[in-house]
């Protein structure tokens, strides 16, 4: 999975390492020192964040969350869709399986758009595993506050577009 991103990371590290070496000054050593320094801080957190996230996902009964997002239409559908999207803490496989189920059960397009938007920008497990250890709690808070309106906006646009 994600192989293209991984290839960019690996080859980027090799290429820039070569550039740093070619400078024939302290660059290569300083770059590596910086990498070790950051890794020592981030990796231990990341390992336990991943373990915690996987147990949280296992413990939360997704079926119960899903039961709330039925074929509600209109503004109520957008609200429920947004909130459901915000709290589903799982990867694409589960989120899209839920969305496809909703669609099958007759959820409105605006509610589906709200759900997928909310899940996309929040995805709690992703925040826990990557964002919190890498960027820190204050950045996470800032970003959360910035993206909270998005699922509602997306749902509202979808409703306007599909009703016209």
């Amino acid at each position, binding site marked *: 999975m994600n192989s293209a991103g991984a290839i960019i990371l690996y080859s980027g590290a090799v290429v820039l390492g070569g550039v740093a070496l070619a400078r024939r000054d302290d660059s290569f050593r300083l770059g590596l020192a910086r990498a070790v320094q950051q890794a020592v801080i981030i990796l231990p957190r990341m390992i336990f964040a991943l373990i915690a996230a996987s147990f949280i996902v296992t413990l939360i009964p997704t079926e119960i969350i899903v039961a709330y997002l039925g074929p509600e239409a209109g503004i109520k559908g957008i609200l429920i869709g947004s909130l459901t999207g915000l709290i589903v803490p799982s990867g694409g496989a589960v989120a899209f399986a839920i969305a496809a189920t909703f669609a099958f059960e007759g959820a409105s397009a605006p509610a589906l758009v709200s759900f997928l938007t909310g899940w996309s*920008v929040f995805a709690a497990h992703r925040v826990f595993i990557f964002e919190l250890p890498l960027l820190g709690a204050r950045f996470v808070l800032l970003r959360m506050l910035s993206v909270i309106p998005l699922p509602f906006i997306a749902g509202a646009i979808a409703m306007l577009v599909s009703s016209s």
Partner: protein
Amino acid sequence: MKDARQADQSHWPDLIKESFGKSFWIFVGVAAGTATLCYIVLDPDTFASVIARDRVLLTGLLPRVAAAQILAGFVWVLLPRDRMSAFMQRNRGKRGLIFAAAAGAITPGGPASAFPFLLILAGTGADRGILVSYISGWALLGIQRIIVWDIPFMGLEFSMFRLLISIPLPIIAGMLARRLAFMLPPESGPPANDGNP
């Protein structure tokens, strides 16, 4: 080069202390708590399967994060940071947010790639609006995700409908991030040469 030398002088004891600081123990605590809960409330088999899955995930993830750190380290040393932050200053308007959202949309891969890229971006002196717009662009408009997930599950028509609606969203989020009135802590990334002529 002054910044870089500062980083080089970091002492191991301080580093270890920061590494195993409060937030590390919070993660350990939550992991231990949820693991215990899973063992008791669910069953030992589920517990064992989660642990097994984590081992697979971690063996895939750790090399990539290590590579990202090495890449970030070299970017940090090689990048002309004063010129870079001048560039970022010049793109403080909406244009910068649009660039960032577009960069997010074409970033390939899942969160294991996107968040390290976000960290590198933060190290270049990009402002909070750019950072939020970039990661939102990746989350909402990511082309790879749309091809792998949206279209197979939701169909082409709905996927395009959602994509078109989502185009302005990362920019809105970036603008909001710039308006929100609270300070981020000094970058864990490179110390900007603020105020030093």
